[in-house]
């Protein structure tokens, strides 16, 4: 099954391949994602692991076309578990500055709002439409 997941999420110079973070085990044991994973793996053609990279992609493209709902659910599950893995989160932090920790409790710095930035729109006259009852409130 790792061959399928590595076809979907291969490794590169920065990111680990799906198999390198144990994505198969994570999917198999996840309460919501295990079922679509099992559904798609059951549909894989015999000898999938021995196919060339190009033929693996072609086989999965066929599967995605034939079973769109199940393949979509698998993709959501695979991406969800891959991108929340600590090893992948560390790569993203190194590349982008997006911290490899939950959003809370630390958050991110909240810069003060600069009121000067509204100078142009503030100089315009009223844009809202008058009504019979219109008056300043």
């Amino acid at each position, binding site marked *: 099954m790792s061959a399928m997941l590595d*076809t*979907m*999420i*291969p490794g*590169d110079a*920065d*990111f680990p391949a799906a198999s390198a973070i144990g994505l198969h085990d994570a999917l198999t044991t996840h309460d*919501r994602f295990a079922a679509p994973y099992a559904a798609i793996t059951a549909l894989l053609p015999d000898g999938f692991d021995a196919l060339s*990279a190009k033929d693996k*992609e072609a086989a*999965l493209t066929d599967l995605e076309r034939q079973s769109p709902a199940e393949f979509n659910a698998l*993709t*959501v599950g*695979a*991406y*969800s*578990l*891959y*991108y*929340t893995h*600590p090893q*992948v*989160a560390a790569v*993203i932090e190194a590349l*982008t*500055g*997006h911290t490899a*920790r*939950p*959003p*809370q*409790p*630390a*958050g*991110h*710095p*909240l*810069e*003060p*709002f*600069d*009121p000067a*930035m*509204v100078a*142009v*729109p*503030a100089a*315009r*006259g*009223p*844009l*809202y*439409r008058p*009504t*019979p*009852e*219109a*008056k*300043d*409130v």
Partner: protein
Amino acid sequence: MTDIVIVGAGASGGAAAWRLARAGFKVTCLEQGGWVAPDATPSLRPDWEIARQTTHHPNPNVRAAPQDYPVDDTDAAIKPFLYNAVGGSTILWGAHFPRFRPSDFRTKTLDGVGDDWPISYEDLAPYYAENDRMMGVSGLSGDPGNPPREARQMPPVPPGKAGVRMAQAFDRLGWHWWPADVAINTQPYGEGRGACNNCGPCDLGCPHGARSATDVSYWPQAIAAGVRLITGARVFDVETDAQGRATGVAWYDHTGTVQRTKAAVVALASNGLGTARLMLLSTSKRFPNGLANDTDLVGRRLMHHPTGMVTGRFTEAMDGWAGPFAVSILSQEFYETDPTHDFVRGYQMQLIRSDGPVGTAVGGYLPRVPWGAGHHARFREVFGHSASLTVTTEDLPRLENRVTLSDHLTDSNGIPAPKMTYSLDDNTKRMIQHGIKSATRAFAEAGAADITAQSLVADAGFHLLGTACMGADPGSSVTDSNSRAHTVPNLLILDGSVFTTAAALNPTSTIQALALRAADALIRDRAEMQVAS
């Protein structure tokens, strides 16, 4: 026997309960969900983005939590988003908090479409102000797009890198923009509520109480004022006497046992879906087609805010994963009817920040990052490099857009689920296309490297409006101007069901202002109220 029983502890139920209890009413509120502990937010966990896709998904059909009811949405172009808990859907909202414009209450007079509300912006203004004080609003005075008003409680949320970039683009185009009014603390405000720390996923809850919700704003004060709040209580019938006056409600407790609460007044505050469902369930000899449904308008005129979305990708990092996801700046340049357009009424554009890693990969604002050999290269291009403009349109009421009872889906108590039947009309479709062109032009002006548009975001049914509409004429509306059912004098509708028209703006501040106004009318008219004997 209680003075009033309120069904639903969300945005409107919390506001009305607080107001009435402080005036001496004996108030009972029944809520099918429970309390959500602030420290239970998934944003404290590494798997927070998985929670967004599963256990904390805004669609109850996906989330499928025990307190949820399913929604039959097979015939609905827009899918339902709601939450069942103390705080209701404010538990998972983005906290946009605009007021409606004066023209929103007069679409028939001004543009010959929809219907005029039986009240005006001026009637609601003092309630908007009171509600702002209770919820806590960050924003900036001086917006030329809206009437002058009191100063907000706190300064605006900073717009982020993309917000600055888009504001400059709007300035060059000569288009209106302004910092969004939001119910998010930029400074400590309210009882025990801290300041925003710019974390991003407001929709998953806020452990600091900075993002307002009625469980941290109204409810602590309502309970202190004596409101009895019962959670795990699923109401399935509003009971009436032979004259059609409400006598109370029947509900299932958390064990599945039927309970009854007798009340002089019944108030429904379960959103435009749940309230219509309950009214249609509550049949009797006097109301064979559902409570207060003599006009066959209960459940009809369902309105959303059909939304298109345009996303710009910049070559520079915008760090859009930081900051309240839904909140930055907005433009109301195309809000009012313009005779040069091929549609009536208008739309607002709101700038949205971007997603975390999972959201980016799975897709939402941008198409899904394809699997396969190019996966990581595409992820690098888009992650943290985009911003989106929603095109939020005014949805005019149509009878065929409606809530009915599903003929095959039920909740865990066997109660028929609501069914949404909903499609867009040509006016709305033309409006969205105009909005997509406008937003595309704005991103081009801002220097986006590439621009992607979605003509309709299906997962955008967070505003459920109009299914028990307010009006002056009992023959063409369900409630009067005080949110009281024309044919059931001791029945109040407090949520967005009463909206006569939908405007093109997030509705929560208007829903709550209407609930406070309805509560004040009840306090004023208490002695004359016709109740069951």
